[in-house]
């Protein structure tokens, strides 16, 4: 036998278990029940939480886009247009604002959004306007055609 005296039986199994445990428990402090205190339960809960967080990074992008679309649809319906018509006519006119910026404009700058909605409406009715009237530019809309003339 190697350990013949009492002092040799003492093993130092790692000096920093406390801090390793605390490092994990700090991610579980806001959980409910014993999972926020007990290491064995917290290990499973924290691992699941991290997995959910990883998957949610993609879902967040989807959710945010859906929220922007809902907000833009609400704002455009306030001005008498529907969301698909608005977006299609904005693309046709060459306005390349994305949905995030459009929803911010709809909330913080309502008059700018109104002008964009009117632009989209003018582009939408362009076919009818050319057919029914003499085909002049609609009032209040600048276009490349006007400038080149």
């Amino acid at each position: 036998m190697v350990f013949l005296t009492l002092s040799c039986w003492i093993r130092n199994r790692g000096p920093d278990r406390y801090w390793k445990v605390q490092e994990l428990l700090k991610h579980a402090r806001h959980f409910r029940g014993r999972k926020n205190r007990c290491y064995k339960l917290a290990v499973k809960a924290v691992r699941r939480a991290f997995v959910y967080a990883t998957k949610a990074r993609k879902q967040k992008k989807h959710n945010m886009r859906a929220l922007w679309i809902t907000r833009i649809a609400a704002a455009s319906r306030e001005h008498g247009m529907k969301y698909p018509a608005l977006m299609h006519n904005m693309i046709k006119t060459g306005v390349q604002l994305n949905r995030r910026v459009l929803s911010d404009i709809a909330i913080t700058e309502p008059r700018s959004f109104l002008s964009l909605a009117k632009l989209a409406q003018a582009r939408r009715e362009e076919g009818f306007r050319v057919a029914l009237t003499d085909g002049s530019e609609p009032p209040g809309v600048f276009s490349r055609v006007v400038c080149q003339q």
Partner: protein
Amino acid sequence: MSSFSRSAQQWATFARSWFLIDASLQPPGKIATMCSVRLQGKHKPIYHALSDCGDHVVVMNTRHVAFSGNKWEQKVYSSHTGYPSGFKQVTAAQLHLKDPKAIMKLAVYGMLPRNLHRRTMMQRLHLFPDDVIPEDILANLTEELPQPRKVPKRLNEYTQEEIDAFPMLWTPPEDYKMK
């Protein structure tokens, strides 16, 4: 609006409005979509599911709601009491006679999102079978929404001048006997 303080601006932005809809001679589904959009707050650009931005909606004349087609006889509302042999099926006409608000209530309930906010939103929906509305609700109303369906005029609602001014579609021959 730019001269308001931040808190006053926020208070005004998130204030709850009261909408009035007249459901007489309107399809209940179309009324219900308008109600559900406003109860959720999806008509506002500041919408968020957690912000509690829904408004109140008052629907009057639910007794005079009008289904299209043969739905009064064909549409069936089913329920189960939970006890054995408790499956009940009622046609829309029978249900309407029993409770004139039930059709609108079930229509809006089915169009709201299936989460815990649904009950709160239903509490913000106020249904009245006729156009008699209590005064405290009348005092809160802010806006009336236009009806989704254009109500056609009955023949006896046209004045004689309008009937005479309507162009003749065909001229009957002299020996034709009109009933």
